[in-house]
């Protein structure tokens, strides 16, 4: 086969050696060979320059098939291998490994897709055979430009930063620390626990939220591997997988632990403000403890409210309370970062179902405080100071919005998604109320009920059995809430019931509970810092909902809990555990292996124009101002190639996809074939 001699075109190592290509065309048991004349394909390809061996095989992915490849590499001294078979997503890795076993660099391989993109989609056999020849000859052209590549190995510092001290962050921190990893947990508020301490009994077990949270919090507090910072503000984060450097501003707490007589300091404080722990039902001081059993177990000062009058300092004798402390910045090094900042509750607009206008209209979160035995009413159902004989629940407030009837939010979007937890939470509250007050009339206004989770449907069944009246409304004509004109009750709900085929109803109520939805927090700072993808619902977006459900596209960043979307506690902890195990798995490898298809700057050609700095989606490029050239950080580069296409000087190339490689492929596809075939 001397007429087939050709030389490799690659620059760098391997360039100039004699090209010895082996081509293996797969029958795929008939999937390919029933349409494509594989025998003819192998013969025609065998005539191309550089191809020293070309054959067909019934199932090249089988063990004998792989052994054949290994044998031929050794026997014929092949230095490039092409397999023409199924999609590379199925078996590219299989054959790369076969190359590696035979001692050949695994990136001197090209996988040609002649099944999904040829034999399965082309009807005409001759056309399919022609297409297969074109595709494989493009691969032949391409492999002559390939050079041996090595995977990048990035060392990973065995530590993790967890952002957010709610149930998801606590769970992730706890599991990571259990694997022996040093964890730093930062929380922006002065107390750990997030939103969970404000909930009462939780579905599906009915146990009290704080009782469930306590052991998780204890596990974090008592673990020497975990360092916790409260009042911590995220300032800056640089670095990359394996070596993130995050700057955190620690705002002073104002109060030291174990100050004797600290309750007197709280009592003496003259400032009063709405207590967010009780959703504005009660007031608290500017120096405060949110609830009994919180952590850290000593008060904090709310700097927005504190007037620095100094009375609390006087009461404790000048020791332990410091109103003049300045914030300080610390830098936290970590190998990975887990983002667990959670979400927010939708706040109804003024007048939405009477909210804000009528004191008897409250949110489900507020009701949770009222039925909590440790809540502001001691667990008694008192709304606007009065006992309640009849109560209504309104579903989908702030969720499942329709553009026809709902005004857009400030960002121009509507919350058209389902918030998932509010249906079961409402039904749970209804059954709870019915169990406590059997004479209470409970009405449930819904457009749809989604009790999707395990055991959630039980609450629906129980509520039905207890006599909750279910009223289904048309989402485009939601119920109207007004003061009762006959003054029999504080308010009246007017609606049309679909379950009774359009009966017009007027329901007088003592109180109405709005099952408010869950919305994403304002995370613009976080999104900027970590280059997160954001979904249309404003929650952070994972790489792939099924294949990589807790990872961000930037390496080393993980998502835990409801930062990804509405979740209940069960799902949040599951998500956090998944994020922790993915992060721990990464750390335990000590090094992360990354594909070598990254971009590289040829310094002699670079003019230092900075355009690539602006197009890089991952901020992987910086400019060496001394040399006046762009520098690509190998650990951050993901190999998208956007800078390669952008560079006006052609100074950036991409390993595995450089211009010569791609152009040779284009030329071959257009019939600029090797001379042996063109003749």
């Amino acid at each position, binding site marked *: 086969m001397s007429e087939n001699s050709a030389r490799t075109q690659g620059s760098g190592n391997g360039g100039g050696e004699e090209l010895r290509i082996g081509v293996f065309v797969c029958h795929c048991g008939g999937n390919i060979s029933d349409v494509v004349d594989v025998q003819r394909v192998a013969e025609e390809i065998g005539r191309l320059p550089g191809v020293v061996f070309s054959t067909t095989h019934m199932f090249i992915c089988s063990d004998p098939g792989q052994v054949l490849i290994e044998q031929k590499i050794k026997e014929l001294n092949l230095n490039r291998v092409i397999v023409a078979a199924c999609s590379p*997503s199925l078996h590219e890795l299989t054959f790369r490994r076969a190359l590696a076993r035979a001692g050949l660099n695994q990136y001197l391989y090209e996988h040609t897709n002649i099944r*999904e993109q040829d034999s399965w989609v082309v*009807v005409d056999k001759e056309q*399919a055979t022609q297409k297969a020849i074109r595709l494989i000859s493009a691969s032949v052209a391409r492999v002559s430009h390939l050079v041996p590549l090595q995977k990048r190995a990035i060392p990973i510092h065995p530590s993790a930063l967890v952002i957010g001290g709610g149930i998801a962050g606590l769970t992730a921190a706890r599991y990571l620390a259990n694997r022996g990893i040093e964890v730093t947990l930062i929380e922006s508020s002065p107390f750990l626990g997030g939103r969970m301490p404000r909930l009462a009994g939780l579905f599906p077990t009915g146990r009290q939220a704080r009782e469930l949270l306590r052991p998780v919090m204890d596990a974090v507090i008592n673990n020497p591997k975990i360092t916790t910072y409260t009042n911590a503000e995220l300032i800056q984060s640089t670095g990359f997988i394996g070596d993130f450097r995050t700057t955190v501003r620690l705002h002073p707490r104002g109060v030291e632990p174990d100050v004797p007589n600290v309750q007197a300091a709280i009592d003496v404080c003259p400032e009063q403000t709405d207590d967010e722990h009780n959703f504005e039902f009660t007031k608290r001081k500017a120096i405060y403890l949110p609830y009994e059993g919180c952590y850290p177990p000593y008060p904090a000062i709310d700097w927005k409210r504190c007037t620095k009058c100094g009375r609390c300092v006087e009461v404790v004798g000048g020791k332990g309370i410091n109103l003049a402390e300045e914030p300080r910045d610390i830098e936290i090094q970590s190998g990975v970062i887990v983002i667990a900042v959670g979400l927010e509750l939708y706040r109804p607009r003024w007048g939405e179902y009477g909210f804000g206008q009528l004191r008897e209209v409250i949110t489900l979160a507020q009701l949770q405080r009222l039925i909590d035995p440790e809540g502001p009413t001691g667990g008694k159902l008192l709304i606007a100071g009065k006992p309640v004989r009849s109560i209504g629940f309104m579903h989908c407030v702030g969720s499942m919005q329709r553009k026809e009837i709902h005004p857009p939010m400030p960002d121009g979007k509507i919350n058209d998604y389902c918030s998932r937890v509010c249906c079961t939470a409402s039904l749970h509250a209804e059954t709870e109320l019915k169990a406590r007050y059997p004479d209470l009339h409970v009405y449930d206004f819904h457009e749809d009920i989604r009790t999707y989770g395990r055991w959630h449907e039980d609450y629906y069944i129980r509520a039905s059995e207890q006599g909750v009246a279910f009223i289904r409304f048309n989402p485009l004509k939601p119920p109207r809430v007004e003061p009762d004109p006959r003054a029999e009750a504080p308010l009246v709900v007017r609606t049309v019931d679909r379950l009774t085929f359009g009966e017009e109803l007027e329901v007088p109520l003592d109180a109405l509970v709005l099952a408010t939805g869950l919305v994403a927090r304002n995370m613009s700072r976080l999104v900027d810092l970590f280059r997160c993808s954001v*979904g249309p619902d404003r929650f952070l977006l994972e790489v792939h909902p099924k294949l990589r459900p807790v990872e961000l596209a930037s390496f080393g960043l993980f998502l835990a809990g409801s930062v990804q979307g509405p979740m209940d506690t069960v799902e949040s902890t599951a998500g956090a555990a998944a994020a922790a195990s993915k992060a721990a798995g990464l750390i335990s490898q000590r090094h992360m292996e990354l594909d070598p298809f990254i971009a590289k700057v040829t310094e002699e050609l670079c003019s230092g124009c900075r355009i690539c700095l602006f197009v890089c989606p991952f901020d992987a490029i910086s400019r060496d101002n001394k040399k006046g050239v762009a520098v690509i950080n190998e650990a951050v580069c*993901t190999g998208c*190639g956007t800078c390669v296409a952008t560079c006006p000087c052609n100074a950036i190339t991409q390993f595995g996809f450089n211009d010569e490689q791609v152009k040779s492929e*284009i030329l*071959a596809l257009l019939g*600029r074939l090797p001379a042996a075939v063109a003749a």
Partner: protein
Amino acid sequence: MADIATTIQTPHAAPATWEPRIIGFLCYWCSYTGADSAGTARMKYPPNVDIVKVLCSGRIDPELITTAFANGADGVMVLGCHIGDCHYITGNHKTMVRMPLLRRVLEDMGIEPERLRNEWVSAAEGEKFSRLVAEITEQVRELGPLNWPQLMHDRGVGHGADLRPWGE
């Protein structure tokens, strides 16, 4: 080696055997997988589009597209992830901006802008992919062969593409 100039047909006089040659640049994460799912579902479409795989549509340098036209492609298809779904966050945003610009440049060069098609195909949109292939094939068939190198030669502009066969 045969004289290449004699093998080039005169523009817009398509011989009966002429078939449109179209290069499809597909990003690996969405569109290439979308093309695979068309195959898995055994959707039939014309064999005229040959796929060149890149990791992200942001890698598709306009120069690669002009290389294709200069070497005999009658049409080019650029497919990427839907905006917001890019595996590389914003790689396809650059494609979205580049393609209309390139289309204007192509127009100035005498290439009908309809010969360049830019669409977004997700990994699940096999049906959309097969439909797009059929559409562009028909569109280019109507426009006829491009023969850009000959066109430039006839007008006496540019130096034409290097027409030597590969490997020489």
